């Protein structure tokens, strides 16, 4: 086969085919509103926890939806559940409940 000299940079690739989408699907079934997320990042901009640390809710729920769960439970532990993100979200997504649900699920999963 001809080698074109291009290759995929592994660390940068997102291979959705290889990700485990089972929980992602379940989450979206439970909270279909999350599909309306426009990734605007308001939730992260408003975030109380993000004032002190690099925590980003947008990043977490985007990764989870993509089937990448590693480290997400620990990341969500940083959330203070203050609810600012919910008030800031232009799509009216119940972000606090999303935090709680993902945490609950990932905790059960690692048991």
């Amino acid at each position, binding site marked *: 086969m001809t080698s074109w000299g291009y290759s995929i940079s592994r660390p940068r690739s997102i291979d959705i085919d290889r990700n485990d989408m089972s929980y992602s699907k379940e989450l979206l079934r439970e909270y279909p*509103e999350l599909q309306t997320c426009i990734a605007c990042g308001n939730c992260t901009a*408003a975030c*109380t*926890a993000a*004032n*002190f*640390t690099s925590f980003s809710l947008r990043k977490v729920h985007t990764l989870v939806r993509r089937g990448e769960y590693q480290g997400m439970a620990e990341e969500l*532990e*940083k959330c*203070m*559940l*203050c*609810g*600012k993100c919910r*008030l*800031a979200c232009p799509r*009216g*997504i*119940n972000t*606090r*409940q999303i935090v*709680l649900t993902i*945490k609950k699920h990932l*905790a059960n999963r690692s048991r």
Partner: protein
Amino acid sequence: MEHFRLFVLPFYAGAIFLLITLLFKYIYWFVGLSREQKRLFWRSLPTRATWKSILEIINESLLHRKIWRTNPLLGYMHTSFALGWFLLITVGWIETYVYFKGEGVPLYVDIFFSYYVHPIFERAFNFSLIKDALLLLILIGVGLALFKRIRSRVMGMKRTTKHMLGDRIALTALWLIFPARLLAESLTSAEVWRFGGYVWTLSENTQLIPPGIGCGSFLTGSLGQWLANFLPARIIEAQHIELGAWWIYSIALGVFFIALPFSRYMHIFTEMPLIFLRNAGLRASEKETTYDRFQIDACSRCGICIDPCQLQSGADIQGVQAVYFLRDRRYGRLTDAVADNCLMCGRCQQACPVGIEQNTLRLNSRAKRAYPDAPNRYAYIQGKDPSTGEGKVGYFAGCMTLLTPRILLAMEQIFAAAHETVWWADKNGGVCCGRPLKLAGEVDAARKMMNFNKELFQKHGITTLVTSCPICLKVFKEDYQLEGIEVLHHSEYIQRLLAEGRLHLHAGSETFTYHDPCELGRGGGIYDAPREVIAALGILKEPAETREHALCCGSSIANTAIDDEGQRRISGQVATALAATGATSIVTACPLCKKGIAREATIPVYDLAEIVARAI
């Protein structure tokens, strides 16, 4: 044993079972109380608390005075069952005692007195008359209860509780008891009318009653007379239907007693120990205790808490209200969906005639399922100090005020006008007060934030802490234990500035209506301070439901389950009610309420601080 009849057995079986079950439950729960809780109880016994409890039991368990206040017909229904039955039993005891001159007779003679003893039908004041009158009182109550099933609105209730099978069995038995008793006593009377009877006395000379006189009084006696004429003599003589009626009465009693501990009727007895424990100072806490069991089983599922719940009236969310929450928790089938779907607005608690601590119970249900808290959680806030400025007065904006910068700006103007030097705890972003986390059940994690903020307050040596968020206010007052620091809501602080003459406002003729935030009003008992401040600025128009009965904005941080649509519908409900006052703008004293109501309001919504700052 010559008077023993088989039909008394179901009653006995039920009564013994009931007694054992009740004792077992109450002792088990009492033993499970913490040492401190038990100490409180024992200590309260020789004090006035005991008299208070006895009085309260008469007022609430027997007379149901609080339900009368909700609706007189509903009150009558509850009182007729409780007081009527209680008196019926008491009069029965006295009658037996008088009749047998204090001699001991088997319990069944007392319970089934009219079967054994036939006091002559006289048109005079006697025990039979009292008992018939009481029976009539209860039968009217049964009629009303049936009527309530069909048309609850007449009793001031739009919605009634949906009951479970166990409740239905107990309910059917309960409703059957009194008509069965009427029938049984009347049939016995019929027999005496027709064939005469005897008056059973302890002495030898048993009196005989000739036919045509009958026994009982205006109810059982008259019905007996009618039955005596109506039924064929053959049937009366055979006694089958008479005995049958007594069997039904006894079985109804037995079934009711056996079903009682598993049904809502457990409240009849449980309210009494609850009143004693509550007056001794026991309270539910953020972690479950067996004291909660007394509260949960004291719920009669009367359903009075359903109508005030805006999840139901505003957002059409059913099955999560206090009554259903308590039911599910009692039978161990509480789901997250029910535990989480509550605004903790306290409207149900306000209406509940039993005074059950709905919010705390809901909270400790949530806390129970929380995962153990990782020790390094929130390590990232350690050693941080986001505060600015210096002063004896500290101001804590809280997450919600930071999202509504106009309130923050208004507070800055007010502080400047009053020449107050202020320490700003979190002007540039701070750590959450911890209440949202606590309300979600993560009680231990919330402690970390509370400790962080508390240390910060102490480090900067403030003596007064002002906050514009009632949610923060509540947690500062209830969980922080800030010795030496006075905690004030900004409404109280502004009121004080006005009283001290440190702030001068230009009064106008604008009309305002005021929305009581739940956490400030029902949650904190602060109703007057914001009203006085508004009165200094313009004219205040109260909405229909106000103060203790105020509506919730629907955006409560306590409800993690409700979706955006539901929140909007509740906001719409309260916005409409507020606009109906005809005021030109809505004032509230909570940043979250402001945001919530403003979403649906047609007139402008301000925080108290904003209208004050405008008038400086």
